[in-house]
């Protein structure tokens, strides 16, 4: 590395001092109507020298001698190149680029190219469309706006993560998240979870909703986002971009502004509310069936004939709400029930009955209106030789759950300077501080939704304090510090206890920066060197107070994560006209990359002094340390050849070496080729005056590689630790002894890189002078030789083996349609629609492996299965009669299951979370300073496991358990197994089975202790009004009386309307956050609807 920097310095010392004779050129830039154009970039070709046109469309530029031509470029107009010759004044008329084909987009490694020359699908989103979405997480602002991109927000809690999927899943167990690039340097977008590291990814099933690190980006800093979808687009990035890339360009200063500085200030106030909750029953109290002898279901001697629903209150520890109806119960009004201010529960006919018993509404008492305040200030300015951009922002968010908080502050400074006519230096540094207080969720006895939804309606979690309960310790805690819960201190945490007593705090400090030098040696050869750094620390602390259900003896853990990514790019660019008609551009580059992350986890158990959460105050502590470092080195080339600017060929090749592959086989080569054919330009005569104003065909083929996960080549020993799926387990050091055990994953030296090949065709056409345009893409990609760990028989002594096998295919179609029915200055209407469908298939896994666990629970989980789409939900369901396909209903009168469906002992597939298709429909109207836009987001197909509902059946709190007491004739055929284990069926079912506790809570009617996944996998399609935004730009006549130059008011609503067949919370949810196991809902945090009001002023 040192040598590298030294040699670089040499280069700049040699060429650093430049002398040249110069002269001045000036002029005016107008459109076809003769109106002046402001903000047009005027660049001397092949140099760093340039300026912008000011008011009146004028410019003045000092050009070095030897400069040949000037390039005039602005968004919405066709770019023009004019020879300077001996002229001192150059006036230019730019033509409108109605179909925006000459717009410059940023492609891989920060290359800027004209849209029409690109042979692959690419979409770019303007920064204004990001900031108007008013989302904390920049990813959420892309939802519904880009074809082929699916974004799933994990929860409605503050700072929660979003999972993004571009053109389907392509890596079986690796990351499927796209590469994030900010101003040419890759940044980390991982989501790290916390919890005892020995529990591995099980930690994803409980804990809190974490952030994906793209949340550290201030959305207001974004100039544009380009989404690179396929391998052809990302081949230059190499292995890290196999799942696509999100290329973010941030705002820069403005050259030539002189003394004026553009100041922009936005203040936003937002309100969030829960948009959807599972329905709960309000008829039955806590309790269950108790027989004449006081025996309960499952106890020996239990007599179902004398049993009846019986109230069993908090002191019994009763978990269930299978008790009597409220109408049969009353409170006695005394003050000696510490669990209820209305007194003890008695029969409604009891002489002491005073107050008729009524259900409490624990859900309404718990959630509140969330608020968010965001201030964002930016300044941009620049003289003839340098420019700057400075921004500050702060967002403070309080979620819909009490104590849930997230705060982010950012500072960013970007500068560019033309050191001399050949040298340009630029750089940027941004600092983000983010984090907050997160709340326990998921499969977790301290999870708020778990405790909240399981609470019987006869128990008041708030203890009479209603919405104020979070601020009243008496609501959730007794004087001796023990917990007030519906199970007498056992079972699950009171949600008000969790939010106050079990906080998780994270504190991220992050720096992202780059420094770049451009050296324009001649007008056909330039050199660029860029070094980038993304560095953060993430300090996390979790507290479990004494008597918390997860750890009744108390626990705290500290988890400190550091991440450091270093990138260096050296790029030589050669541009040359080969003949009059053929132009060529060759780029040769070198890339170095290092990713180094560490984590230190210290967990301390058994608190001694209550409420003092320092590690020293716990009787047991242990540590875990992680260090992950990898490096890659690549050489790459990119050649673009055009013929008369209507036929473009682009080829890339990249040779890469990675430390994660076996030493002797650690380098590999891949590349791409793409072709763009602008047939309307090629056959100008044919299309002249036709209704087709632009047409382009494109195709590409690409191969990209991917290296192995770190440390896959060896099988070392690991500090000993063992858990059993029920409890935390044990770990070493243990009783002062150090213990190591053989790692459970068998590494291998026989690894070759993963490979994804892809073929893509596209057609882009615009009609009637751009009145409407369409863009169609079809792609077919295949990922082979996947490196992943497969489960093997544990009798081999190992749990997993690293293999190099497996194949996933993705085929899909994307369509974009834009219509501009009105394009007037007074009124305009734009309609745009994007549609995408992706067919994903796990073609094969490893030999002998049909089936791979991705995430979830025993019994209901997400898998990759050969011959099925990735992410298929597996679980247990009911036996089907092979003859009729109907469910078999047990007709053995002696069976306890008589009249109910028979459980199939074999696991089944219940579909995947992958949607059939996605559609985003956006309309934007502008009229007299008002702009109204609304975005409908449609997801058709894809299922979700409603594990919450499955569990609430057991607990008897779900609304649908109000069918108790009725009978049901299950649809199916009667049948049973005979003595030889053979299925015997006997016609359509006509047995009326009781819908009661025996089936719904203790039989297979529920999805909790019953092994019934089938009834709880639901269609998670939706249609929603994802965004509605109304903004008003105050007229100049008013603004001129203020100190401001512009004033705008905006209202943005998100998720204002949702229609879905899903019966749980908002089906846009993910228990495991930004991980591959999508489609699980197990006491997930609900989603939110939000209302944002903002004011924007410019100076």
């Amino acid at each position, binding site marked *: 590395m040192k040598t590298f920097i030294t040699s670089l310095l040499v280069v700049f010392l040699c060429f650093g001092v430049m002398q040249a004779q110069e002269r001045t050129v000036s002029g005016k830039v107008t459109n076809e109507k003769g109106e002046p154009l402001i903000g047009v970039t005027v660049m001397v070709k092949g140099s760093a020298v340039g300026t912008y046109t000011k008011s009146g469309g004028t410019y003045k530029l000092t050009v070095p001698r030897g400069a040949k031509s000037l390039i005039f470029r602005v968004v919405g107009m066709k770019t023009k190149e004019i020879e300077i010759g001996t002229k001192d004044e150059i006036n230019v008329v730019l033509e409108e680029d109605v179909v925006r084909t000459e717009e410059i987009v940023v492609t891989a490694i920060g290359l800027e190219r004209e849209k029409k020359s690109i042979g692959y699908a690419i979409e770019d989103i303007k920064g204004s469309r990001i900031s108007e979405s008013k989302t904390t997480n920049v990813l959420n602002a892309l939802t519904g706006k880009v074809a082929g991109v699916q974004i799933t927000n994990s929860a409605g809690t503050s700072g929660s993560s979003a999972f993004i999927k571009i053109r389907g899943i392509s890596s079986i167990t690796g990351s499927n998240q796209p590469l994030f690039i900010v101003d040419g340097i890759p940044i980390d977008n991982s989501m790290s979870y916390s919890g005892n590291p020995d529990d591995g990814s099980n930690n994803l099933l409980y804990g809190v909703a974490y952030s994906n690190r793209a949340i550290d980006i201030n959305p207001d800093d974004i100039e544009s986002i380009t989404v690179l979808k396929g391998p052809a687009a990302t081949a230059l990035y190499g292995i890290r971009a196999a799942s696509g890339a999100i290329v973010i360009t941030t705002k820069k200063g403005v050259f030539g502004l002189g003394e004026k500085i553009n100041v922009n200030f936005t203040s936003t106030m937002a309100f969030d509310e829960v948009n959807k909750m599972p329905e709960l029953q309000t008829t039955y109290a806590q309790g269950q069936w108790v027989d004449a002898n006081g025996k309960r279901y499952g106890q020996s001697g239990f007599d179902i004939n004398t049993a009846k629903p019986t109230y069993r209150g908090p002191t019994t520890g009763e978990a269930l709400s299978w008790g009597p109806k409220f109408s049969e119960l009353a409170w006695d009004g005394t003050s000696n029930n510490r669990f209820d201010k209305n007194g003890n529960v008695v029969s409604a006919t009891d002489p002491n009955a005073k107050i008729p018993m009524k259900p409490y509404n624990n859900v309404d008492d718990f959630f509140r209106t969330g608020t968010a305040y965001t201030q964002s200030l930016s300044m941009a300015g620049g003289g003839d030789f340098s420019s700057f951009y400075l921004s500050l922002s702060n967002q403070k968010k309080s979620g819909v759950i009490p104590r849930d908080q997230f705060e982010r502050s950012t500072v960013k400074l970007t500068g560019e300077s033309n050191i001399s006519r050949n040298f340009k230096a630029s750089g940027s540094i941004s600092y983000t501080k983010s984090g907050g207080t997160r709340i326990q969720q998921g499969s977790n006895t301290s999870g708020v939704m778990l405790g909240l939804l399981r609470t019987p309606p006869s128990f008041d979690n708030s203890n009479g304090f209603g919405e104020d309960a979070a601020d009243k310790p008496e609501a959730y805690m007794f004087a001796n510090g023990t917990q007030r819960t519906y199970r007498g201190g056992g079972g699950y945490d009171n949600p008000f206890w969790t939010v106050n007593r079990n906080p998780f705090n994270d504190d991220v400090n992050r720096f992202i920066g780059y420094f770049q030098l451009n050296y324009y040696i001649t007008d056909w050869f330039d050199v660029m060197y860029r070094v980038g750094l993304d560095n953060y620390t993430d300090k996390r602390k979790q507290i479990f107070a004494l008597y918390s259900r997860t750890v009744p003896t108390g626990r705290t853990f500290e988890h400190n994560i550091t991440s450091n990514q270093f990138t260096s790019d050296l790029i030589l660019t050669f541009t040359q006209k080969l003949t009059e008609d053929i132009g060529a551009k060759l780029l040769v580059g070198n890339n170095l990359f290092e990713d180094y992350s560490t984590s230190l986890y210290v967990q301390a158990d058994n608190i001694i002094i209550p409420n003092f959460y320092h590690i020293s105050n716990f009787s047991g502590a242990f540590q875990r340390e992680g260090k992950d470092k990898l490096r890659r080195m690549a050489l790459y080339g990119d050649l673009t050849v055009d013929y008369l600017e209507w036929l473009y060929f682009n080829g890339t090749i990249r040779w890469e070496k990675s430390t994660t592959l076996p030493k002797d086989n650690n380098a590999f080569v891949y590349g791409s080729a793409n072709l763009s054919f602008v047939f309307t330009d090629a056959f100008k005569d044919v299309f002249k005056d036709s209704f087709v104003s632009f047409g382009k065909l494109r195709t590409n083929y690409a191969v990209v590689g991917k290296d192995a996960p770190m440390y896959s080549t060896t099988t070392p020993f690991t500090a000993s630790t063992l858990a059993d799926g029920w*409890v935390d387990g044990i770990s070493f050091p243990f009783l002062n002894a150090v213990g190591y055990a053989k790692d459970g994953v068998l590494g291998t030296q026989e690894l070759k890189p993963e490979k994804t090949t892809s073929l893509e065709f596209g057609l882009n056409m615009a009609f009637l002078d751009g009145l409407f345009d369409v863009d169609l893409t079809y792609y077919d990609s295949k990922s082979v030789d996947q490196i992943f760990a497969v489960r093997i028989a544990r009798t081999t002594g190992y749990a997993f083996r690293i293999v190099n096998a497996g194949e996933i295919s993705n085929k899909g179609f994307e369509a974009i349609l834009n219509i501009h029915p009105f394009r007037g200055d007074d009124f305009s209407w734009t309609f745009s629609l994007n549609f995408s469908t992706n067919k994903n298939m796990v073609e094969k896994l490893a030999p002998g492996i049909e089936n791979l666990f991705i995430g979830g629970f025993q019994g209901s989980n997400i898998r990759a299965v050969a011959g099925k789409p990735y992410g298929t939900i597996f679980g247990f369901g009911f036996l089907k009669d092979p003859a009729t396909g109907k469910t078999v209903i047990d007709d053995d009168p002696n069976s306890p299951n008589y009249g109910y469906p028979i459980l199939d002992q074999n696991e089944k597939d219940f579909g995947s979370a992958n949607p059939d298709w996605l559609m985003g429909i956006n309309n934007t109207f502008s009229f007299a300073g008002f702009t109204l836009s609304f975005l409908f987001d449609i997801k058709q197909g894809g299922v979700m496991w409603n594990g919450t509902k499955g569990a609430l059946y057991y607990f008897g709190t779900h609304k649908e358990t109000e069918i108790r007491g009725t009978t049901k004739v299950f649809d199916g055929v009667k049948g049973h197994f005979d003595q030889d284990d053979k299925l015997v069926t006997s016609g359509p079912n006509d047995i009326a089975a009781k819908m009661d506790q025996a089936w719904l809570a203790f039989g297979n009617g529920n999805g909790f202790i019953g092994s019934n996944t089938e009834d709880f996998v639901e269609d998670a399609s939706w249609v929603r009004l994802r965004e509605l935004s109304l903004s008003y730009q105050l007229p100049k006549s008013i603004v001129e009386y203020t100190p401001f130059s512009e004033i705008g008011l905006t209202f943005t609503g998100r998720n204002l309307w949702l229609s879905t067949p899903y019966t749980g919370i908002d089906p846009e949810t993910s228990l495991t956050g930004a991980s591959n196991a999508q489609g699980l809902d197990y006491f997930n945090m609900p989603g939110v609807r939000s209302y944002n009001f903002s004011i924007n002023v410019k100076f």
Partner: protein
Amino acid sequence: MKNKIILILATFLLVLTACEQWVDPGLNNDPTKPSDVSLNVLLPTTQAYYAFLQGGDVFRFSNMFTQHLTGILRQHAGIYQYVFTESDVDNLWNSLYADAMQNMNILIEKSKASSSPYYQGMGEVMMALAIGTTTDIWGDVPFSEAFKGEANLTPKYDTQEQIYNKIFELLNSAIANLAATSSTFTPAGDDLIFKGDKAKWTKAAYSLLARYYLHLKRYDDALNAVSKAQAAVGDDFIFNFGTKGNEANPIYQFMEQRGDISMGSVLMKIMNDANDPRLPFYAEKDDNDEYSEESTIGPYYYRSEAPIHFTTYAEMKFIEAECKLAKADKKGAYDAYIEGIKASCARYGVAQADIDAFVTNPAIAVGENNIDLEKIMTQKYVAMYCTPETWVDWRRTNFPKLNPISGNQIPRRFPYAQSERLFNGASLQAAVPDAGSANFIFSEMWWDKMW
């Protein structure tokens, strides 16, 4: 100009050369994980791992079947009523093989390689115990071809008879190794069970021989082994857990973190009827101030540092009683029975006066003429609460009499693990063709058929 360009290109090449070292293959060795380890970090691992597993699913599932426990909530309510699937035993099977026995195997191999017979002997005792527990749960299981990693991804199943022979081989080898005159490496504090006391390990090896001979009705061999096994409560082969969160006893952890079980009605009735002084150690009183199936597990096991019992002096005495009874030595059987009860009470911490009173209680002191298998097995059933051996005893002797919780049969084995069905299915199918059938868990294994 030309010079500049040449210089730039030359520099570019220079940079490439310099970068060659950038990709250092050594970076791919995880700095947090050693590639090799010494014996003194493997021994404690194997001990703690096995103890944790025996005190986990092994104990809970088997003791629900023997009705020492009641499964009251959630999954345990299902298993208690024999709703017991292949996925329910996955974690246990996986950890027995890939965590406990895998590292015992490495410990044995490494101690052989370094001529450390003391470590080898301890490893062999642990391995005999672990595979013995495993075969008594499932019957035919892989062993001779197990733990070979890539070399054999589908280990075949050995018959239970072969496994028993292997157990005897391991224990005899252990006894010889523990008697070796020297050992390159010698266990001390890293031996979490006996702190390197080879004599106690030898007794433990004999106690296991006694147990497994008894399973095969080899009474003489068993009696011979008992004579060399534990001779006092202080010799008990048990594993003590610690007070820290990561060292906590698995029963304690389960009660704290899940709590879905309570005491069993059968055990509570036997103990209540005899006014057993061990009751306050075994169970907590219920809401009615009684010991009943509503009671939760009591303080002996419900504490972080509680032990897990492997073999005890009390068990040896009950084995002796059973063997002597089978050989028509009623006096010997009765004396051993009384001594077994005393040893058990002492193990749980019952005061000597209470022990003396208890063994004169007519419910216990039945006299040598009235001693029979049911009485011995019933007292052994009480004494060995929270160990899986009681389930073996019930399957062998059918004592104490139990009524099925649901249906008309009580499980006699666990279903095989889902992971075996998925990843070693052919081997499983070849050895145990009926493993997936609905009645499989009620079927008898090899030794069970002898009784």
